């Protein structure tokens, strides 16, 4: 007998939960009076939508509409405290007296404040809590404010470096191809990715990167930045305990815009701009060759411009069009948006076209039950630039007849010219993304709040990489040798989130309140990876996989599930001292069979000192001190614990198996424990606001990706819980209102972060673990420190150039699991690798200034910098040894350089990584309302934003050995840990965008 669709016990209960939350709500009370008015920003005068206006004693409330207006009905006569709350703004309490049957006008001005002690924080809390009650630092980026002054085209620009302790390493300067590597408080994991979790409206978001050849593409930028209200960032285990396993690298939560009661209001914007490679002749490496005894140098950018009379790289067009609508009633509110974004790169075959749509609905069933439904979609098509950039580095005058070389179609490029890249390879990403969630808030009684979030994030991505058969095959592009090939890679990623939290409030005494919370979370990630590959086409007209002579296919399904449960107890004393304790228990499908569940506790406390009666320092008000200790985890890879064999094609094309993963039955998550203390303070009537945090973090049972001994018969590496990594750092956020009054207001902001780390242990058998090109994890040193031989002297075999002999190296001084510099000189054959320095940024800074003139003009500028370590330019050593096109290898007159190459070429890529960059310049003009209305609009503004305007300061321009000038030190490969600077990636581009925004 066939049975119809059935719900599992879990599904049944989930359904029942939703049902139970939706019934039994009591009716709302009748009307007696009305409070109406508007809510606006106290500094800019802009109307504020979505402000929660409520009278808590009466259990009634309403949201302001898109024009800031609101109307609160059913107010009984009397004097009431009207409370106005909005994310990112200080809570306002205003006394309002209502007479029976009358309407009272109460306009509210809300002030943005950096400290925002009464702002509601939803990330890392059980259902949302005022900032004053949270013992850890929570940073918030006000997306709306950023967009007003410096329009952004993607989420990365929005997040930028506006948060102390958050650093981003860009993945390259071409369009559509780069997702930055995001690190919060640096790296702490030896063997697992150090990426934070990202949520959107409470639902886990896919930010996986897809690796391509010399290019990565990522999912974070699938979100339309115009849809974002704010972004909250919590930074480590102390804050992220309630997220449990996976959260030890911090959590980023994107909060989207919501509807507001009132007539429909449209926001339309048009953005036009360009992106370009600034000063390209100085962005490429000059290539040298010695031909017939004569030295030639070629700058490929200048050479191509001379040859063809036009620049090698162009200005790529940026276009974006957005339309958003919001409105509704007290019961139902909506926010809907559509955005089209079209970007062209600075090489003409590189472009990106994407369209996004969003619909957010809020349904207030009654004053105890509200439901929010969010849905978004994105459709994107990208043609990646490919690896053309490395061809500028690999080239040589030897293949440029106008530079003394031979007649060659390469014209001085490496293995292919830009037009060969453009015409010979088509590398596309086609992405469809859908995100949907439902959030139910239910308070059956004033003391009992429930929140249920269920959501899915679906990503469908098809990558096609076609290398066309060339007319002069078999000589041509890589892999296919000109005979043609095509790869089709389909990747479907499903993320499901189910998150319930419930809180019971109870006041033990009028001063002492308690809030007990419990939560249950289910998170599942499933990826379906399908690949087809075809090689060699019979004719140039063929270009599908099926048309190729040889076909291969691949399919893989990977699933991971986390189930967690937490309990939290919070005590508050007169709403100024808070003490919170919580425990989360997790199970994960990736844990080994011999490993049980994992428990993560946390304790935090905070005290708003300035609200105490004894506080009499008026210049220092408010002041809050806070401290938190907590643990969170980082799970191993799916199936990392299991011993696994993979299917292969065996003899006679029959099915066979081969070893794949050695596994570890005892494998569990690594556990990050963190202690942070800090304070938030306002000085001089809050004209100066400071947020200071000091943290210490220790990652225990750190998962070390230890190589499996080949003699065990398995390839690759094995995850073991063996290591310990300590991190520590300081974060300072500083906001200063230098000038407060019209007609000139001037604000300064600084976000500074310092962080460092040290490997305490890699397990019993391991002191040192090689990563790549001189970077090693060594006990007693930072993660991925640079350890390699250091040549201190060498003699030329003959004369004053050429090969060297008598190479002497730094003998090092034993320290931890390695050696530090400063030992006696010893023959290099007897020398150890010594520590040259760390390869992460120990400090990051972002300083910005906003000048407001006559309320209409705003000028914004920001400087971003990082430094405090070394970066390894990975391609530079290849210029000396593989392509032999550097000046140093052509001259061979530096004995240390020659000796280093003979010993280990890695140090020739080292350069100090410190820099300050002119990151953003924005100018906004608020069009006079009379003029805007003449255009049929309620409001209008125009803004110009320019990005990446050049280095203000570089610690070093040339490599320490060999003296190669490295144009940029910022780009890397986002999907690989500790990869260093990848100069094969195109340098970061500059951009300019003008955006006209109209509200009507």
């Amino acid at each position: 007998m066939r049975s119809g669709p059935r719900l599992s016990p879990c599904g049944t209960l989930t359904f029942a939960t939703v049902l139970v939350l939706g019934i039994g709500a009591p009716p709302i009370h009748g009307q007696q009076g009305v409070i109406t008015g508007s809510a606006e920003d106290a500094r800019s005068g802009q109307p504020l939508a979505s402000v929660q206006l409520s009278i808590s004693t009466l259990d009634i409330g309403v949201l302001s509409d898109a024009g800031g207006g609101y109307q609160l009905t059913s107010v009984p006569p009397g004097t009431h405290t009207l409370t106005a709350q909005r994310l990112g703004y200080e809570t306002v309490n205003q006394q309002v007296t209502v007479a029976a049957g009358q309407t009272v006008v109460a306009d509210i001005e809300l002030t943005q404040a950096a400290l925002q002690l009464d702002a509601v924080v939803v990330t890392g809390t059980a259902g949302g809590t005022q900032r004053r009650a949270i013992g850890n630092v929570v940073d918030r980026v006000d997306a709306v404010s950023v967009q007003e002054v410096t329009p952004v085209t993607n989420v990365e620009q929005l997040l930028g470096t506006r948060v102390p302790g958050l650093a981003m390493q860009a993945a390259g300067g071409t369009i559509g191809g780069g997702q930055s590597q995001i690190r919060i408080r640096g790296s702490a994991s030896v063997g697992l990715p150090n990426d934070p979790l990202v949520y959107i409206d409470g639902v886990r978001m896919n930010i996986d990167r897809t690796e391509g050849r010399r290019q990565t593409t990522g999912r974070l930028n699938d979100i339309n930045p115009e849809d974002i209200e704010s972004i909250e960032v919590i930074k480590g285990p102390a804050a992220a305990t309630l997220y449990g396993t996976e959260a030890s690298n911090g959590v980023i939560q994107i909060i989207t815009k919501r509807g507001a009661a009132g007539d429909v209001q449209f926001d339309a914007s048009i953005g036009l701009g360009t992106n370009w490679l600034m000063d390209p002749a100085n962005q490429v490496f000059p290539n040298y060759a010695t031909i017939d005894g004569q030295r030639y140098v070629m700058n490929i950018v200048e050479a191509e411009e001379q040859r063809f009379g036009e620049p090698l790289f162009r200005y790529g067009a940026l276009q974006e069009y957005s339309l958003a609508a919001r409105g509704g009633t007290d019961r139902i509110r909506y926010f809907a948006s559509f955005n089209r974004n079209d970007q062209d790169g600075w090489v003409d075959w590189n472009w990106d076209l994407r369209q996004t749509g969003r619909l957010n609905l809020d349904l207030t069933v009654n004053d105890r039950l509200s439901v929010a439904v969010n849905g978004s979609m994105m459709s994107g098509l990208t043609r990646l630039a490919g690896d053309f950039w490395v061809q500028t580095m690999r080239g040589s005058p030897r293949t440029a007849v106008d530079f003394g070389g031979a007649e060659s179609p390469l014209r001085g490029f490496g293995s292919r010219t830009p037009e060969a890249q453009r015409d010979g390879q088509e590398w596309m990403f086609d992405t469809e993304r859908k995100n949907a969630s439902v959030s139910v808030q239910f308070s059956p009684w004033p003391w009992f709040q429930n929140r249920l979030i269920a959501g899915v994030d679906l990503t469908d991505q098809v990558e096609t990489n076609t290398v066309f058969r060339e007319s002069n095959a078999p000589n041509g592009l890589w892999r296919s040798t000109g005979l043609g090939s095509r790869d089709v890679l389909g990747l479907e990623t499903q993320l499901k989130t189910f998150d319930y939290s419930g809180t019971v409030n109870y006041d033990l005494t009028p001063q002492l309140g308690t809030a007990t919370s419990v939560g249950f979370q289910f998170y599942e990630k499933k990826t379906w990876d399908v690949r087809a590959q075809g090689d060699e086409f019979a004719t140039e007209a063929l270009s599908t996989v099926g048309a190729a002579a040889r076909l291969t296919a691949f399919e893989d399904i990977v699933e991971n599930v986390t189930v967690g449960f937490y309990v939290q107890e919070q005590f508050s004393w007169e709403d100024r001292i808070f003490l919170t304790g919580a425990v989360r228990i997790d199970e994960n499908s990736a844990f080994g069979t011999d490993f049980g569940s994992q428990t993560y506790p946390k304790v935090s406390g905070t005290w708003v000192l300035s609200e105490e009666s004894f506080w009499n320092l008026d210049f220092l008000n408010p002041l809050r001190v806070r401290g938190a200790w907590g643990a969170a985890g980082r799970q191993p890879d799916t199936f990392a614990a299991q011993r696994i064999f993979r299917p292969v094609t065996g003899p006679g094309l029959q099915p066979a198996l081969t070893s794949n993963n050695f596994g570890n039955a005892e494998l569990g998550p690594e556990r990050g424990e963190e202690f942070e203390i800090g304070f938030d303070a306002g000085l001089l009537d809050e004209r100066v606001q400071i947020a200071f945090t000091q943290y210490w973090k220790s990652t225990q049972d750190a998962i070390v990706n230890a190589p499996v001994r080949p003699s065990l018969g398995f390839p690759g590496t094995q995850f073991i819980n063996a290591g310990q990594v300590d991190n520590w750092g300081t974060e300072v956020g500083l906001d200063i209102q230098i000038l407060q009054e019209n007609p000139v207001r001037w604000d300064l902001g600084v976000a500074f972060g310092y962080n460092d780390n040290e490997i305490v242990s890699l397990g019993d058998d391991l002191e040192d673990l090689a990563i790549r090109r001189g970077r090693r994890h060594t006990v007693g040193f930072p993660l991925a420190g640079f350890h390699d031989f250091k040549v201190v002297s060498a003699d030329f075999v003959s004369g004053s150039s050429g090969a060297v002999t008598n190479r002497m190296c730094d003998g090092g001084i034993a320290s931890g699991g390695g050696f530090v510099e400063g030992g006696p000189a010893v023959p290099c054959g007897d020398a150890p690798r010594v520590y040259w320095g760390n390869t992460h940024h120990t400090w990051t800074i972002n300083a910005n200034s906003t000048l407001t003139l006559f309320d209409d003009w705003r000028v914004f500028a920001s400087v971003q910098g990082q430094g405090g370590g070394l970066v390894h330019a990975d391609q530079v050593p290849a210029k000396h040894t593989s392509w032999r096109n550097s000046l140093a290898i052509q001259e061979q007159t530096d004995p240390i350089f020659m000796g280093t190459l003979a010993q280990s070429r890695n140090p020739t890529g080292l350069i100090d990584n410190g820099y300050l960059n002119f990151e953003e310049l924005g100018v906004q003009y608020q069009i006079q309302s009379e003029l805007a209305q003449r255009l049929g609009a309620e409001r209008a503004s125009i803004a110009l934003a320019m990005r990446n305007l050049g280095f203000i300061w570089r610690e070093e321009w040339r490599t320490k050995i060999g003296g190669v000038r490295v144009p940029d030190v910022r780009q890397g490969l986002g999907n690989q840990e500790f990869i260093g600077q990848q100069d094969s990636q195109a340098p970061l581009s500059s951009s300019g965008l003008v955006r006209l925004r109209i509200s009507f």
Partner: protein
Amino acid sequence: MLRFDRLLRRKTLLFALPVLLLTACDDLLEVELPGQVRSQDLNHPRLAGVLARSVQGDFDCALSAYVWGGGLWANDLYQTDNFSRARLTQLRSDEVLNFDQLECDQFTFPPIYLPFQISRVQGEQAVEIISGFSNEEVADRDLLLGTAHAYTGYSYEILGETMCELAVDGGGRVSRESVMMAAEDQFTSALQFVESAASGEARSIRNMARVGRARARLNLGDAAGVLEDAGQVDAGFVRYADLDLSDDRLYNRVFNYVNRNSGNSSVHPSYVDLEVGGIPDPRVPLERLEDTLPFDGVSELWVQHKYTDLGSDIPFASWREAQLMIAEVSGGQTAVDIINNLRATVANLPFVDADPGLPPFVSNDEGQIRAQVWEERRRELFLQGTKIGDMLRLDIPGVSTDDFETGVNQRGNPYGPHTCYPLPDQERL
């Protein structure tokens, strides 16, 4: 008390829902793994054939990679690009010590060590699992065990010939001689399982084990043992690594890197224009690519035609090799006769179209005969994975005509100090 009771009731209500959810959702953590196999699922009689076949598949793939990588190491091939790490294999550089260990179908640089360790371990595991089943449970159980033993023996043998020393099962290091003895034991076990079997495959495995054991005994200096085994190999026998162009794991790596990707690797100049008495030697068929630019810009490019496409099988055990082993340990007129017999039958080789009429070798000088045996091996077994073992075994001044190169290579880069392949750093942790 009333206040406390109320508090308790409220919190009970709070906890009720999550607890219910947790108890109802105990199957949530179950995940699927439809694309791979857990080790605990292998132990089933139905999979015995798959296990034996998998050992063979691992070996075939390993051998294909080894013929390319070992060829670079031992003067069969040389690397003609400027940038790949394969050039370091050719240079026998110290850097090979800390190479990541690659699987047989990876190609950042030639995988030499790990693939045979995988094949060896999987072979021993297959033997252990299949041995636990009865003949009733597993059809052709003896043949499967013989196959697994024979391929495991070959994995030991090539590791023993190539490596300076070996690590086994994550433990301590063992000498080349011990490894060779382990290979001999595996072949002996294989022969016990297929000694009396009559099927074509069983006979092939029996011949393979005899050639393999003879080769192990040759390395161990057991001349009598060589003669005993090599003399029993059926005339014309050849066992191939079964390759195919439909799957890149089964590619013939030599064809891939020398012929298909012209400009990466080339045949070593020492094989260019080989003749016998003025007649081109068809056992080393080469062609110069004059119009193709090597990636390093300086090397001559020579492609081979012994393997004609990506799916060309690679022979690794044959009657001709057995004959050469007899010649090597016998010397004298026996060796001369064998050399001439092989020359007279070159047309039997699949890549030789017609008998070129190679003239016979004539000599009664023992030194000259031994040198000629070596030269005949070099040509007969060209790109078959025997070269490193031969160079190390025959590295006798005045006898070997093919020494490990020293000085600098064609691009001016210095050769490293290694002759045998050093144990990777990963085994020294």
